[in-house]
């Protein structure tokens, strides 16, 4: 009989008898968790690729903080290119007494030059494409704005000094970014309305974009012409640049999520190894018989290989189908963050599913199956002959090789691979050691609390290896879930609690110098203590110690960012409250005007120290200063703070606006609305709503990550099933024996429950302890908080573990309890 046919028959027989059930389920969990991520990121990737040509809403985009040089637009039009302009800035819009931060995009006719706007006539009605932009007097707002302000289409919206009418719901614009979060909903309006709105005055924080589109060759020539003329603060973007940013972020997210799902794959693989070992052990006799009847080693080998190949294909396809279904969950959880409609996934992840399935089987199931070929035929006569053993080195070698290959394929970075492999090995060692300790500890408490209790705990100890594996498998899954839920909330709450009660909850920006007296008066009028207003001068760093920044050797990305974008300078006669002096003197008494104090972190990344000089350009005029002090800044004071502070003097003469932050209780917010009404160009940014939105985003993202780690728990359950299956015969025998001695069913059942509840408790203790340690490290290193673990954590971890493992284990073994006692005589 050909090996394939025989393999098919034995597989279908084993399937019917439930022999390979656990093996298949473990494979399904592994493949399902990995392909769920792959299908989802495939969809996002496709959406990004599809949108890449539209992401600029043009072929070429020029960004600047100042209005686009009209000469550029004239030149583009002379060359036959289409042009449009976009002005973007955040602003508070209001309706009655309700206000909301919006992302204003004021556009000219022709926008977008590439791609199409999609709008709807009302909330939850079908969207359609439009060719025009909002006419004057109208805005198109995203549904989020309507929802937050409780408005419908047709309602008036106060935008600066203007009352505009919402006429459509904005569903899609080509230059919205896929894969990023827009904190504030977009409000699309006509650029011609901006002057009357009073929102933009010199010095306002806005971004101007000029869009260009046309024939490829002309665009290339125009881009070359333009880049020769670019001035400081002007940035040219083509489609390549824009795509890179987005795909970079998607790629990082994909790698992170894939790594997370590899945890489930690893655990499932452990279950595969356990199930394969049992499968091989149970086939020793039939292989001996086959060989006795004349089957050569080659045939046994071929059958084994065919069985694995068939299993790999079946589980690969079925697991991919599960992954395909599961990705809808991720897409749903992340819908708000990803934005827009995702195209359906392509078929490629299914191929990955097949490869995963094959790889897991090769690494974890192949060694014991291969070993079957050396079963001695004489076993048919002498059952006491030991079955062939797989050497630990072969089994571990194959498994490690497969794991490292899979990690290498996900990470595609040798150094990172070394770090991750080292990290995993370290973590496993710690967890295994902790698991071993816990299992040993459980042995010492099995004393005199009744037979069921002792029997359950004794089982944990006797099956030490399996017990440790299960404790670690469940402990890991629970730990991650605890971190993502309890610890995350603890840390956020801890951070919020560390802020003073009256920490500023509003930033007020874009206050013109001539408005300042009136703004201060307004606060006084309304009985609110006027805050400290800091001057803000927008400048660009041009020289470091006399060397032009283009030639400066700066690699730190934060520092590079500071050099390429506009910097905010301020000046102050005294050291601001939330700053502490680190070195130097905050203004020598006899100097005037040319001293600089710099934040210590940025000084370090720019390689600057006391005595160094910095050159700036402010509105085209040069400004220079010498560093005479460095400061540490408490950024989370929510006071306006600056990397660079000047000594008052020369800088006073440059164009500036004022900025402040203030605590306004919820019920006194009227003063802020009054402020915006009187001074439309002043922007009030509500920190609480931003924090609330950030938190909402984090909640969503962490839900998605929890979803991914849900597979880890599932893999933990499969490990448990594999362990139960491997010990089923033993358990039957022991249950029968206990009952022969007169134990009631309930006693045997209590023993089983004790065993699994105790295992779950141990896993939960491990998880809670791990979560506390990680939470503490995060609190110290990242949040710089003193971390007091939530007592809930220490209760929830063990409780959850006991419940989950107790239930799963008891359900999986309950049939064993029914084994009739007469089996002891027939064993």
């Amino acid at each position: 009989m050909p090996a394939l046919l025989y393999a098919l028959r034995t597989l279908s027989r084993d399937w019917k008898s439930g022999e390979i059930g656990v093996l298949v389920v473990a494979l399904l969990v592994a493949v399902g968790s990995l392909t769920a991520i792959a299908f989802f990121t495939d969809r996002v990737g496709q959406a990004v690729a599809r949108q890449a040509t539209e992401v600029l809403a043009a072929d070429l985009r020029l960004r600047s903080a100042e209005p686009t040089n009209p000469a550029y637009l004239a030149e583009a039009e002379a060359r036959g290119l289409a042009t449009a302009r976009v002005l973007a800035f955040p602003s508070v819009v209001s309706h009655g007494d309700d206000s909301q931060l919006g992302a204003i995009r004021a556009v000219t006719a022709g926008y977008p030059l590439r791609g199409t706007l999609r709008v709807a006539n009302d909330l939850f009605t079908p969207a359609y494409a439009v060719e025009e932009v909002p006419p004057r007097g109208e805005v198109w707002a995203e549904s989020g704005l309507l929802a937050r302000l409780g408005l419908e289409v047709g309602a008036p919206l106060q935008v600066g000094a203007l009352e505009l009418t919402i006429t459509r719901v904005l569903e899609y614009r080509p230059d919205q970014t896929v894969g990023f979060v827009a904190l504030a909903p977009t409000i699309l309006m006509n650029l011609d309305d901006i002057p009357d709105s009073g929102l933009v005055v010199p010095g306002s924080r806005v971004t101007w974009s000029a869009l260009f589109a046309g024939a490829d060759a002309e665009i290339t020539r125009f881009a070359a012409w333009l880049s020769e003329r670019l001035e400081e603060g002007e940035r040219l973007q083509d489609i390549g640049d824009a795509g890179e940013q987005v795909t970079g972020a998607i790629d990082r997210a994909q790698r992170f999520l894939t790594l997370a799902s590899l945890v489930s794959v690893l655990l499932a693989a452990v279950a595969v190894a356990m199930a394969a070992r049992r499968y091989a052990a149970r086939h020793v006799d039939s292989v001996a018989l086959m060989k006795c009847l004349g089957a050569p080693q080659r045939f046994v080998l071929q059958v084994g290989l065919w069985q694995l190949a068939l299993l790999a294909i079946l589980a690969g396809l079925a697991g991919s189908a599960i992954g395909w279904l599961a990705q809808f969950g991720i897409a749903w959880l992340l819908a708000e963050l990803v934005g827009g409609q995702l195209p359906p996934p392509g078929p490629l992840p299914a191929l990955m599913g097949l490869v995963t399935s094959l790889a897991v089987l090769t690494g974890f199931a192949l060694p014991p199956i291969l070993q079957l070929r050396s079963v001695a035929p004489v076993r048919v006569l002498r059952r006491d002959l030991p079955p062939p053993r797989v050497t630990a080195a072969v089994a571990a070698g194959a498994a490690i090789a497969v794991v490292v290959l899979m990690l290498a394929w996900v990470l595609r970075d040798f150094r990172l691979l070394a770090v991750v492999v080292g990290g995993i090995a370290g973590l496993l060692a710690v967890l295994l050691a902790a698991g071993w300790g816990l299992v040993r500890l459980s042995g010492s408490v099995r004393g005199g609390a009744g037979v069921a209790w002792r029997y359950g705990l004794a089982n944990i100890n006797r099956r030490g290896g399996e017990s440790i594996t299960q404790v670690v498998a469940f402990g890991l899954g629970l730990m991650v879930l605890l971190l993502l839920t309890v610890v995350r909330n603890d840390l956020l709450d801890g951070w919020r609690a560390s802020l003073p009660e009256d920490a500023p909850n509003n930033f007020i920006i874009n206050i013109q110098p001539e408005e300042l007296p009136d703004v201060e008066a307004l606060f006084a009028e309304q009985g609110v203590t006027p805050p400290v207003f800091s001057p803000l001068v927008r400048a660009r760093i041009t020289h470091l110690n006399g060397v032009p920044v283009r030639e400066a050797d700066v690699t730190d990305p934060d520092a590079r960012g500071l050099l390429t974008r506009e910097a905010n300078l301020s000046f102050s006669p005294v050291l601001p409250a939330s700053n502490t002096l680190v070195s130097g003197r905050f203004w020598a008494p006899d100097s005037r005007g040319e001293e600089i104090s710099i934040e210590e972190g940025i000084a370090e990344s720019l390689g600057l120290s006391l005595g160094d000089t910095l050159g700036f350009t402010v509105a085209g005029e040069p400004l220079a200063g010498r560093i005479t002090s460095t400061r540490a800044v408490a950024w989370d004071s929510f006071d306006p703070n600056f990397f660079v502070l000047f000594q008052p003097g020369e800088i006073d003469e440059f164009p500036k606006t004022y900025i402040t932050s203030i605590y306004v209780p919820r019920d006194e917010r009227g003063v802020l609305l009054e402020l915006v009404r009187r001074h439309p160009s002043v922007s009030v940014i509500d920190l609480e709503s931003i924090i609330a939105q950030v938190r909402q985003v984090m909640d969503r993202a962490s839900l998605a990550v929890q979803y991914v780690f849900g597979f880890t728990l599932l893999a933990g359950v499969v490990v448990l099933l594999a362990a139960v299956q491997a010990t089923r015969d033993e358990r039957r025998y022991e249950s029968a024996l206990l009952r022969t001695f007169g134990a009631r069913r309930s006693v045997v059942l209590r023993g089983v429950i004790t065993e699994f509840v105790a295992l779950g408790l141990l896993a939960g203790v491990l998880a809670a302890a791990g979560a506390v340690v990680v939470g503490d490290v995060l609190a110290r290193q990242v949040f710089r908080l003193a971390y007091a673990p939530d007592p809930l954590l220490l209760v929830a971890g063990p409780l959850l573990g006991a419940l989950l493992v107790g239930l799963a284990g008891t359900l999986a073994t309950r049939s064993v309890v029914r084994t009739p006692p007469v089996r002891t005589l027939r064993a």
Partner: protein
Amino acid sequence: MTILDDVSLAIPAGQTVAILGASGAGKSTLLALLAGLDEPSSGQVWLNDIEMTALDEDGRAALRAEHVGFMFQSFHLLPALTALENVMLPLELAGRRDARAAARAALADVGLEARVSHYPRQLSGGEKQRVAIARAFVTGPALLFADEPTGNLDARTGERVMKLLFDMNRQHATTLVLVTHDEALAQRCDRRIELDAGRLSDDRMN
């Protein structure tokens, strides 16, 4: 298939009985029925004036916990438990509070006081069966069932274990029912019952 047919017998308290017969004659099935481990398809089994066949499984288990001890050919010690814990097992199932002390004493009676905290895998075959004897007698059962108790032991060890079993039996005045192939063992019993193809072929006093 009928395994046992028309088997009717009564065993008075204190008697030692050997059940003999070829493989497949129904010895183990008879033992299982007598001990309430299995239910007959028809007929009745009485133990101490209680009709076991009228009880459900848990009822029979409770009866066993109170009155019955066991020994098996393959010892059947629970591998997760120490020698002491194995002996404590039937005491605890019967709800005895002094389980630990009684088990320790029983192990001392079979000469294993030095091995109390050993696991079955650390004991020799003879030692395992001695633990099994301690476990069988520790509850002071009225009735002890033994299934080929020396079947897995070499001749010398088997002989020693046998002697111990009968000594203990005399001390405790236990009713002993044992299934065996061993003629010498059968000779030591008060009575021998032979089965042939599920029927009682011989029943006489030694």
